[in-house]
């Protein structure tokens, strides 16, 4: 029986590749948007505008304090009540962007706050304005602190894309879930799903380890 199911699984393998493509698409789009948003929020969070800082702080606390699956439910079920109808795919991207940017915001703010105050003052007294200070003095140094956890966060974000399967986005986990109904070999089906996730996230884990070691030596 197992051999029979294995052949069936090989038959429908292209279906899994489609799921992998969908997962990669969601992961790529959300990594880009999360990084951009995260850096903007992180810079404002370590800025001087108190009101903005507080608002971002509340946003980050809400996102970090609740499970991602609850956030996905809130976006998918509650936005329609408020008159904003979203299909599953854009809802998934929105949820990923909100969640990921909050985590990256904290990493960026942590990196910026690790730079001694003297650096800001030195940059200011060299006649650089605030944007130039950030661009040429603070961020290049902060990147050393930011980069290793940022790549680690990318791995977490890629893995979290599996959660959007609950609202019916046909990505890798959803494909596994649909398949296991027809091919009742849970170990086989989800080993395959896991192996495909491994293929995309393990290189990033290695990169994160490498960066951590490299930055630690510096």
């Amino acid at each position, binding site marked *: 029986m197992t051999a029979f199911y294995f052949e069936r699984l090989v038959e429908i393998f292209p279906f899994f590749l489609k799921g992998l493509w969908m997962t990669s698409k969601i992961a790529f789009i959300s990594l880009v948007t999360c990084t951009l948003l995260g850096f903007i929020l992180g810079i404002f969070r370590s800025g001087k505008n108190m009101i903005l800082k507080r608002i971002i702080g509340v946003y980050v606390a809400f996102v*970090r*304090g*609740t*499970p991602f699956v609850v956030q996905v*439910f809130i976006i998918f079920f509650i936005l329609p009540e408020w008159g904003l109808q979203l299909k599953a795919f854009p809802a998934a991207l929105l949820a990923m962007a909100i969640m990921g940017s909050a985590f990256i915001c904290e990493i960026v703010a942590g990196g910026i706050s690790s730079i001694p105050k003297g650096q800001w003052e030195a940059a200011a007294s060299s006649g650089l304005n605030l944007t130039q200070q950030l661009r040429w003095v603070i961020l290049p140094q902060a990147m050393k602190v930011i980069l290793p956890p940022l790549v680690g966060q990318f791995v977490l974000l890629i893995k979290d894309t599996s959660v959007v399967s609950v609202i019916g986005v046909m990505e890798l*986990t959803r494909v596994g879930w649909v398949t296991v109904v027809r091919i009742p070999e*849970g*170990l086989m089906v*989800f080993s395959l799903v*896991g192996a495909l996730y491994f293929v995309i996230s393990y290189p990033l884990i290695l990169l994160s380890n490498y960066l951590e070691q490299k930055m630690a030596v510096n």
Partner: protein
Amino acid sequence: MLADFNLRVILEYLPLFLAGLRSTFFISIVSIGLAIATGILACACRISGIRLIKYPAIAYIEIIRSTPLLVQIYFLYFGLPTLGIRVPEIQTGILALMLNSGAYIAEIIRAGINSVEPGQIEAGVSSGLNYVQRMRFIILPQALGVTVPPLLGQAIVLVKDSALLSLISVAELTRAGQTLTSDRFMPSEAFFTVAFFYMCIYFCLKALADWSQRKLIFREAY
């Protein structure tokens, strides 16, 4: 928008939410306890010189860390019955959380042990302490303090991860929200209440983690 937020329904379903909260507490505490035990074991294997137990430990840690928890949960949920093992969903869920957090905790403990300077180990060797004595009297007393804040961080992650068990119909907090949504179709009331309870747990654990971090910094300065 929020004008017609129905508090009466929340009150009516409060027993369900509280039962869910209790279940989330129970699952989290049992899982974190088992995960710490798993983590210690995996870390001990990982840093040992014996290849026969070192490489399986590395494989376990790396596989867990590079696949999503949801896939691991489904793997056990759909996979255990094909092996002829039939256990209640909650046990499958706790097993998944234990294996998942165990791998992360193994790495946390390893980082703690690595944070002890090699010079101290050499000093221990030259004082004539054997491996177990060095671990017991030099490395672990220093390493364990460092691991407390990240362990609490992992506890926060685990509480949030336990929400995924609602997808294999474990009756915990998120499941209570799903039940209210399907009974009355009131998702705002359901999921904002769920989010509120998770936030409460998060803030308590976060305060604890920050406090332990401050204690640690103080001790190092001292």
